[in-house]
């Protein structure tokens, strides 16, 4: 049973019960939370205090400042002050679009939500999508075009790019012209690239993104002769094997995959069936965290393991499912002694037993051979056409040599490139370090960059044009399954700028072509229906263009090529350390590094904020003599980077993970500057995102190790080892459905039970489907105007997020199980905070909310002291006063912006509840469905919200499940937030999971 609280722990200090942990337990706030900011002594503080009291007294004597009201000049049908509206648009990331609904108040977008009609969203929105709205208002975005150092306007830049001026430089046929784009699936970009190709037949377009899925495309070109993209139907899969693939959080289609995966994991009754997930990975990913079985292996060892799985499956299913040549290529020359033999045999048997209802998915960074093995496994298991289908890759020129950056760099160095136009991306920062891309840029006489910021790439380019944010621009995009959608602007450009399409039109000699007109011209021929205006409006309104999903392709295997690729096996397995470069769950590839929300969002696994760290297992750290916080020098074939070490339980041994996107250098992005270490310095061209490594401890002058404090929130807000996180295996649950029953039901109490009529709001959170992806945390931050406090603030324990996700480990330190638990105000019916507030600033509403009244709060913090869940946050400083004018525009007008000295916490999105009640009051109907921001964003629908008296609602149904429990039930707080204990589905035939040996 998992009810033994001692089995659950959150960090190493806690697992080992160190003195540091015992001291931290005894504190209400982490050490330093109440400390004064630096440079302020106690005396000067008292002096300031006196002065501010005196000033406050004087301030009251003056008349209130008069406000002005500025009505519109003419009626604006699209904007009614006081009314939020939603518009459909889409955001492109990693080349693929995700459909969104953007809430807009009086013409300013304030919140991003998923579009339920879009196949990549289904109503959910991820961390990146929701964070991107703050980027729109970033005061550090570039504001003006320039040529050389001199600021200029668009006409001058357009003239520079016009055929008349460009032809003398690049030649009549464009021999010297190169375009560098990010991988794109936009029909408009494809069309305009085609037109540029007609105008300059010898010009070439190149595509680069550090997270490009090149290996996957190479594999499908080898297997099928063309770039196909596999699409998975997790809804039909009973058994899933992820080979170093973080499909629940790290792929362009992850929101959709997470929804489908969770639908098979959400069991209403103990008799329900549930899927099973196996993960082989070097680090510890979000997907690995929810896995039923996780095998820790170096990234380089994934391939031999995958081969072993394929051999095992073939042995069971019979060799006939694959041609003999291929089957022998898989098995040839493999050592008889395979590590983890028992694990792999059990896995192969499980896969074979569920043939046709399984999925094998390979990670983007794994070499093409691993992708090929995944294709073969899916074919051998009969999954193709059932759980796996193929479409032509929607990305332009996928798998073609134009996705190869070194070819472009070589041409630039050779002097063949006379003019280079760079569209978005930041290649100067994110290119492999050994290419010396800066030198190559210097060899090109004319370089033009279209970007959001005056970043590293902008500095290397002679001409700069500010780009439009997608919320200001007209464009289009394609989802992973080929569904096209339009991008429509929510507001006029804040700082001016151009889109990709407009810059391409300038190359064609149309400097005045607007993106809107270009887009309409393209879609006029493609939208079905006789009435273009009607079809256009419908496409804008729905956010998807109906009937554009790509058709399935029956893959035609080229067995000969497959065999030869598989025979080209890597050198035998070498012992030694490797580094693994990871997409970051917060700043992606570095493009969101200037986004304070995302910098302060705790990483789903490490709970690190503001920066990255070298993640390594405790065993590897002990072997290297590294302790947590030591600065280490990572050296990969002469490329080095210095970064702080972070000991992560469950991380693979002999592997060091480093997240990409940090360590931004000089540029216009002041928030990002100097935060973390730049992992791209370890990226080699032609090499994968992992490889051999030497680690040495950085030492200062005296020989003492250099250290850095990492801002991790994992040890803040401790819960003293009580049974708070609960989980059981599926067969335990079936044997004893009421295993959590001791933690629910009424507790004897002196306090009156609350009145129960009308709406009675409550929430249920399903720990079986929570992946910890943290989309809810960003949703809450955006919806409720939560400020950021900065790295020092987090180090001092002052983070403000109302909703945190506690990440618990269970079991041994080397390969623990992981359980995620969103923790927010529990809205206790008998709330301890309410009894101790001396000014009645926190009270209970008749509909079951624990209310927080900011204007009454005097900041005693008694409530936080008395809160057993530690979910109250205190405004130690006036964080909202320091933000830029543009950043104020993102604030939700329906929620108070709190000032200094005020306590705050989750309100159950009371603004949404009251809005719904008011709407119902006007219509004279019952309150319609209310959805909280966290619930709305959740890709797996782990959060359910509603009224206890609304019988027949999802909430009431889920609260009746036997695995429901209340956190800290024995205190008798009767929380309105209740949890459904996590359920795992381990394979009974599996030997002990241990990636170590």
């Amino acid at each position, binding site marked *: 049973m998992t009810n033994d609280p001692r089995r659950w722990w959150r960090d190493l200090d806690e697992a080992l019960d160190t003195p540091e942990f015992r001291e931290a337990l005894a504190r209400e706030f982490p050490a330093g939370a109440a400390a004064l900011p630096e440079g302020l002594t106690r005396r000067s503080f008292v002096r300031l205090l006196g002065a501010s009291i005196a000033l406050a007294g004087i301030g009251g004597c003056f008349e209130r400042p008069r406000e002005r009201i500025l009505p519109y000049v003419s009626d604006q049908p699209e904007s009614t002050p006081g009314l939020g509206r939603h518009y459909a648009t889409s955001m492109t990331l990693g080349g693929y679009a995700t459909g969104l609904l953007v809430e807009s108040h009086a013409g300013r977008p304030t919140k991003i939500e998923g579009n339920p009609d879009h196949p990549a969203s289904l109503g959910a929105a991820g961390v990146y999508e929701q964070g991107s709205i703050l980027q729109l208002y970033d005061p550090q975005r570039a504001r003006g075009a320039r040529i050389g150092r001199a600021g200029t306007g668009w006409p001058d830049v357009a003239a520079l790019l016009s055929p008349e001026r460009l032809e003398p430089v690049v030649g009549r046929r464009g021999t010297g012209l190169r375009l560098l784009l990010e991988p794109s699936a936009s029909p408009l970009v494809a069309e305009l690239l085609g037109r540029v190709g007609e105008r300059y037949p010898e010009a070439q377009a190149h595509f680069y993104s550090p997270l490009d899925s090149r290996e996957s495309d190479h594999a499908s070109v080898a297997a099928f002769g063309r770039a196909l993209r596999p699409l998975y139907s997790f809804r039909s899969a009973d058994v899933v094997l992820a080979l170093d693939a973080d499909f629940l959080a790290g792929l362009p289609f992850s929101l959709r995959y997470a929804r489908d995966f969770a639908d098979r994991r959400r069991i209403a009754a103990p008799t329900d069936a549930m899927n099973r997930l196996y993960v082989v990975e070097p680090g510890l990913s979000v997907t690995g965290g929810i896995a039923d079985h996780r095998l820790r292996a170096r990234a380089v060892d994934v391939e031999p393991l995958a081969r072993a799985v394929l051999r095992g499956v073939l042995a069971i299913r019979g060799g006939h499912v694959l041609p003999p040549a291929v089957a022998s290529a898989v098995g040839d020359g493999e050592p008889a002694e395979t590590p983890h033999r028992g694990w792999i045999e059990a896995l192969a048997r499980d896969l074979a037993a569920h043939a046709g209802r399984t999925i094998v998915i390979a990670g983007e960074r794994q070499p093409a051979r691993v992708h090929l093995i995944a294709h073969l496994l899916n074919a051998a298991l009969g999954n193709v056409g059932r759980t796996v289908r193929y479409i032509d890759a929607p990305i332009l020129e996928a798998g073609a040599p134009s996705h190869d950056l070194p070819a472009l760099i070589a041409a630039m160095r050779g002097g063949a490139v006379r003019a280079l136009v760079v569209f978005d991306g930041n290649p100067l920062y994110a290119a492999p370090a050994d290419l010396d891309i800066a030198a190559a840029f210097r060899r090109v006489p004319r370089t033009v960059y279209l970007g959001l910021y005056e970043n590293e790439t902008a500095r290397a380019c002679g001409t700069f044009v500010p780009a439009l944010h997608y919320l200001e621009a007209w464009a289009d995009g394609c989802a992973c399954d080929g569904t096209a959608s339009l991008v429509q602007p929510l507001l006029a450009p804040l700082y001016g700028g151009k889109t990709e399409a407009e810059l391409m039109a300038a190359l064609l000699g149309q400097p005045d072509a607007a993106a809107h007109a270009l887009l309409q011209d393209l879609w006029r021929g493609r939208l079905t229906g006789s009435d273009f205006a009607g079809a256009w409006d419908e496409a804008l309104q729905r956010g998807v263009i109906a009937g554009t999903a790509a058709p399935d392709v029956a893959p035609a295997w080229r067995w000969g090529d497959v065999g030869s690729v598989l025979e080209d096996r890597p050198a035998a397995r070498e012992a030694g350390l490797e580094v693994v470069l990871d997409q970051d769950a917060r700043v992606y590839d570095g493009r969101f590094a200037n986004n304070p929300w995302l910098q302060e969002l705790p990483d789903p696994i490490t709970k690190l904020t503001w920066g990255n760290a070298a993640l390594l297992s405790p065993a590897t750290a002990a072997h290297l003599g590294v302790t947590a916080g030591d600065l280490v020098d990572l050296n990969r074939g002469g490329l080095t980077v210095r970064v702080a070490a972070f000991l992560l339980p469950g991380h693979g041994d002999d592997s060091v993970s480093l997240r990409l996107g940090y360590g931004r250098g000089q540029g216009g992005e002041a928030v990002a500057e100097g935060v973390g270490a730049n992992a791209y310095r370890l990226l080699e061209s032609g090499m994968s995102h992992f490889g051999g490594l030497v680690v040495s401890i950085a030492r200062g002058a005296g020989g003492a190790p250099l250290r850095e404090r990492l801002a991790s929130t994992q040890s803040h807000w401790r819960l003293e080892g009580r049974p708070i996180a609960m989980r059981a295996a599926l067969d335990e649950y079936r044997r004893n459905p009421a295993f959590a029953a001791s933690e629910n039901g009424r507790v004897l109490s002196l306090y009156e039970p609350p009145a129960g009529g009308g709406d009675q709001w409550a929430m249920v959170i399903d720990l079986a489907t929570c992946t910890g992806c943290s989309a809810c945390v960003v949703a809450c931050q955006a919806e409720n105007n939560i400020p950021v406090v900065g790295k020092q603030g987090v180090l001092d324990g002052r983070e403000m997020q109302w909703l945190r996700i506690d990440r618990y480990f269970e079991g041994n330190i080397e390969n623990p199980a992981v359980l995620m638990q969103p923790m927010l105000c529990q809205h206790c019916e008998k709330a301890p905070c309410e009894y101790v507030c001396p000014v009645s600033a926190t009270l209970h509403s008749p509909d079951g909310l624990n209310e927080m009244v900011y204007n009454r709060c005097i900041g005693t913090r008694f409530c936080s002291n008395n809160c057993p869940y530690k979910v109250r946050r205190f405004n130690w400083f006036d964080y909202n006063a320091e933000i830029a004018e543009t950043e104020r525009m993102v604030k939700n007008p329906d929620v108070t912006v709190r000032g200094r000295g005020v306590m705050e916490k989750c309100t159950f999105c009371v603004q949404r509840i*009251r809005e719904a009640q008011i709407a119902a009051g006007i219509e004279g109907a019952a309150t319609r469905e209310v959805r909280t921001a966290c619930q709305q964003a959740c890709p797996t629908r782990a959060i359910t919200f509603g009224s206890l008296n609304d019988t027949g609602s999802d909430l009431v149904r889920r609260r009746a499940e036997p695995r429901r429990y209340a956190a800290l039930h024995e205190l008798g707080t009767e929380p309105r937030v209740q949890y459904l204990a996590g359920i795992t589905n381990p394979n009974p035939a599996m030997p002990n999971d241990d990636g170590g040996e």
Partner: protein
Amino acid sequence: MPSLFSRSSNRTIRLTLGIVLAAAVGIPILSMIWVRTPAVTGQHSSPPQPIPFDHRIHVTGLQIDCRYCHSSVEHTANAGLPATSVCVPCHSQVWRDGPLFAPVRRSLATGRPIPWQRVNALPDYVYFNHAIHVHKGVGCETCHGRVDRMARVEQAAPLTMSWCLDCHRGPERQIRPVEQVTTMGWRSSRPQAVLGPELARRYGVSALTHCTTCHR
């Protein structure tokens, strides 16, 4: 030994103590009274407006309904101030050229809004919703006073929290039939003690005094 202090110093000390005590009690009490006076609440204040718009002419004289200009009052939290273009249909025919109308002409010509001064201001942490109030039978007049008699709009109510609660604790004392919401000077033919509870039942009005009714 002669006394160190004269006899009169006793009186001085008593007097001083008395003043200190009176101040300690009186200053808080007086300040609490002071903040409730119109001087602080702004009740009866009527800031000068860019155009001397006279509600008497428009409401009493021309019988224009409140909602012609304050058009979003039934749908959104804000009653809404009319766009400049709302003035145009009538004022392209009458009072078109006078100097008083210059700000309207300027606004139309430049596309810049008319900068009205806010009269009824609530703190930013108060979320008042017009729509629900007019749908539940709270008349415009109940909070805004006899606007039809105002040459220049003034703040009729103190807009303090206790003033809000006066009604929120017993809404049946103030509500009227929904059809009469915009009527100025409406008088019920039946006593409010009978009509109020009946309307409250019909409209589903109850006393809402929990904090998040207004503070979010």
